[in-house]
């Protein structure tokens, strides 16, 4: 009846989100036209073309490519790390990155704010990795970082709220808006719920609570009991792993097998749930992630579908 008026391509806003939500996203939307934006859609429906992320710098690397150097780095927030890169065709960013990297290599660590565009790549087994291609970045102070934590906690709460509101409405834009889902979240939620099915966003609350408690002055939540001697996966390089298996990854792997055994109702156990179980048992998030990789690589558990783990049939 009424034609859509001519679409204008306007700048996409920078979504505030924590690393965990971005990392777990596996749905993407590529624009059909040459200049149409592409998006990563998270499990709770953030539709991301551009993001503003902050955190401590964690690894910076230069690679020499055919068309010049390109750079990779990680920025860590309370929930995990954002992978970002600077492409060879962004020479205007190279001096700034080099300058920060020189400091990094001298052992300096600092907080960074980064605005980047959503990128992703798929692995051969169908796994999806999300990353950000830097547009602008700069060092920030702690105050700016904590303000970002609060803003991002609120943005995430708003998305969780909209996601749960959407569960009570039909999955179409008009019904969602009528149910009170904010206009900017409607499209993402329709796509997310269509793709990820039922998803319980409770896992994202941990990061929110952590961010808010940091901002109110506590550095972290009730810390999980310390394992006797937590292990460093990275120390256990593939060669070394065979020679010197430390007891703890073994514990973690038993825990993984046990968790999958007890919780798998047929669909498999979700990656996130496994991590949570391990963290509750006292492993750090990172060692939990690595133990899961380890368990899968050793054939203790299998991942028939990306992100879902099952026991290997006897």
């Amino acid at each position: 009846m009424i034609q859509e008026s001519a679409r204008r391509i306007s700048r996409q806003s920078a979504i505030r989100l924590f690393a965990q939500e971005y990392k777990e996203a596996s749905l993407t939307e590529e624009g059909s036209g040459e200049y149409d934006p592409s998006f990563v859609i998270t499990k709770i429906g953030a539709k991301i073309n551009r993001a503003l992320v902050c955190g401590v710098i964690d690894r910076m690397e230069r690679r020499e490519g055919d068309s010049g150097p390109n750079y990779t780095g990680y920025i860590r927030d309370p929930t995990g790390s954002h992978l970002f890169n600077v492409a060879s065709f962004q020479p205007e960013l190279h001096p700034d990155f080099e300058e920060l990297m020189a400091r990094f290599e001298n052992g300096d660590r600092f907080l960074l704010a980064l605005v980047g565009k959503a990128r992703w790549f798929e692995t051969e087994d169908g796994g999806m990795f999300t990353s950000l291609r830097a547009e602008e970045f700069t060092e920030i102070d702690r105050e700016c970082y904590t303000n970002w934590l609060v803003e991002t906690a609120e943005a995430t709460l708003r998305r969780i709220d909209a996601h749960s509101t959407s569960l009570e409405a039909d999955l179409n834009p008009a019904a969602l808006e009528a149910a009170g889902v904010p206009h900017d979240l409607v499209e993402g939620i329709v796509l997310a719920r269509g793709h990820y099915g039922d998803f319980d966003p409770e896992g994202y609350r941990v990061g929110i609570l952590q961010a808010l408690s940091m901002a109110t002055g506590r550095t972290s939540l009730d810390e999980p009991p310390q394992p006797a001697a937590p292990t460093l996966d990275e120390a256990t390089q593939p060669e070394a792993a065979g020679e010197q298996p430390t007891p703890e990854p073994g514990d973690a792997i038993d825990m993984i097998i046990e968790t999958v055994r007890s919780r798998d109702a047929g669909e498999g156990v979700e990656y996130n749930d496994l991590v949570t179980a391990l963290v509750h048992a006292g492993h750090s998030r990172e060692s939990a992630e690595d133990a899961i990789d380890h368990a899968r690589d050793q054939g203790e558990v299998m991942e028939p579908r990306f992100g879902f783990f099952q026991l290997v049939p006897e």
Partner: protein
Amino acid sequence: MTEDGRYATQVKIVKQECPDADEGEIVQEFRRYEEEFLIPPEDALRSVVRKFQAAAGMEQTKISAPSRAEMKVDRFSELGADDRNVTIEVAVITYTPRIQMVRGEERQVAFGWIEDNPWEGSDNRERWDFKDWGEQAENLAPGSVVRLEGASVNEWNDKRSLNINRTTRVTVLREGGTPATQVSSDPVDIATASANEGYINIVARLISAKPDVIVKRDGSGELDVVRGRLGDSSGSIGFLSWVPLEHEPGTLLKIDGASVRKFRETPEINIGDRTRIEVYHDTAFASMEDLSQANKVAISDLRNGMRDIEVTVQVESWVQRSFSSEDGTERVVRSGDVIDPSGRCRLTAWCEVDPEPGDFLHLTGARVQEWQGSPDLVVDDAAQISNLSDAPWESIDPEQHWVDVDLTSMVSGGSRRGIRTSGTVVAVRPDSGIVERCPECRRVLRDGSCMEHGPQRGEEDLRLRFVIDDGVSNASLLMSKDASEAFLGVNQESVKEEIARDGRDGFVASLRQRVLAQRFSIKGRSIVDDQGAMLLADETEQIQTTAADAANDVMQRWGVVL
């Protein structure tokens, strides 16, 4: 636990990995992660180890790049037996779903035939089997043409087929089966009609109608038209009828097959030969009294091209000037700044009216015309203006009058003056700093040349350009020389010196460090058009909030308990 003992467990591990690292420095690093970067020691472990490994010159693991290029092909024959992440457009020939038991769970899989080269005749196509693991039944209807992204090739007994995986994206390029549903011909309300351009049917009450003439551009004569307004409970809209309209104001009309077009920025209903109009009866429909409010607007509602509106304003300043018009006659125009609780604009009067600052004016039948990107009110006849003796609101102090507008409302509204909004800087434009302007037209020169006036000796000017963003909406932020100097706290000369010393890149980098990811409150005016929203700042200041207070607000707002 002593301060140092707090990190004992982690320090031990770091020492295992980096035996030469100094214990004190390790503790120092963990404390820094915890206090400055807010990362507890158990989570900081990997980072800290890496740091000391690097310091000791030890081999580090590289960030792996499992990236594998997407493989885009037109024909099946281009595919190898191991290809994954394949992108191809295919025609779906058959689709047969089936429930399969996979490790004790029931899963729906489907198989069928697809053909490549879908846009050509079927004699030049190759047919393959496919298997759908992704429950894509809705997108793979027989007869449709789809683009598959992230499919993989499967080879079994020398026969190749395509797997559509759970992560495969299926985009329907041409629907199979029945065509898309027809658009409805139900009447819409005026609010809906105003939001889009195109053909519509509406039921609305005729609020006003008066004959008018349009002079043809080619000078071949005049056209009789009728202009007026239509209203319903959702709002009102102007109309332009190219055919005679005999109905009296107040009549309820059913109008089929009119079109909505935009005149400047204001939607208008066009009634032509093919539009059918009939009198409609509905006793529940909003009456003329209900609708009389419809064309009363506030300054914040003004849009270029509006006509016949009613608005009340407070006069801030008033001047008159005379000029010679094209035909040589002397004309006088009066104008001034006016305000209301919703904002600020200019009022131009082509008639004798001389209000004092502070007076309240009630305008009827006013029109809106854009001047330098802002919508301004225009009145042509003194009879349209009445000077109110009763103040409609407590007198507003123009100096302090800034209307708070959040970014989303600003971006989705019209151009406005006298507003205050806030956002986080997410981009610093690299052309911030000293620019050279054309002495003729003030355009920024590129390579010493003006788009309009050719090579020029430019005049130096200072300006800053950022993008502000609140996570939902964004706008360009532009600061002219005065606003920039106030913002930077230094004058144009100092900026010029800084750029001469550090280069433009250095200046922009230090600017970026100062503003990127920081929140600002901006007073100024907005210009909203097809290119997006731009904010011309009079004054920009950093928002000082303590994170703890902000966090407590957030927790209260969302009912979060730590």
